[in-house]
């Protein structure tokens, strides 16, 4: 599964793109990430699956493009 990271999250993870094992849904993914990168626990972020922001616990297909999005600050 391809995981994209942006902004402060890319800094925490140290990369903008990583390959990780598949996770069935976003809740399990977030749990794994917070364990791997404890700094994520203090950070507000949202998740996009295939370029669409999702909310709540959403299932993830194996070929999905998942992205971690800190609060937007364009403009």
């Amino acid at each position, binding site marked *: 599964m391809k995981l994209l990271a*942006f*902004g402060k999250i*890319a800094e925490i993870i140290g990369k903008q793109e990583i390959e990780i094992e598949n996770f069935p849904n976003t809740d399990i993914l977030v749990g794994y990430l917070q364990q791997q990168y404890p700094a994520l626990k203090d950070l507000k972020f949202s998740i996009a699956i295939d*370029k669409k922001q999702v909310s709540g616990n959403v299932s993830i297909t194996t070929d999905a493009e998942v*992205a971690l999005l800190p*609060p937007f*600050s*364009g*403009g």
Partner: protein
Amino acid sequence: MEKKRTPKNIFVEGAISPDKIAKSIANHSSKTDIGGHSIFLGQVRADEKEEGSVVAIDYTAYQDMALQQAFEIREAIFAKYPLTCMHIYHSLGEVKTGEICLFVFTSSKHRKAAIDACEELVERIKKELPIWGKEILNNEKSKWKVNT
């Protein structure tokens, strides 16, 4: 004939030059059904932070998603207001204080639609586009920008 619109690139490498803005305005002189243009420009401020003072903002984006999102916002605004034209440009990479990082441009027959659409576009761009600004400080530190 209904024009089929597709996602357009909104990103510009570095600052948006006043010259680009002038050219964009001049391009509309052939559209003689336009009565009013509304333009918003975002400029990078030299804010004083606890950690230091801002000298530039370095913008990054989830580009594919941002372009898709910008396209959907465009379509919604075109559906809501009787506009002749709409243009959105946002910087990527480093933009120094005093330089322009956002250029939103709407045109319509009458001023009200252009003005209201421009304001709504600016709000939606700031809130809905996956773009991040990293404030570069004068002491080699940096700080992630927070939109209010």
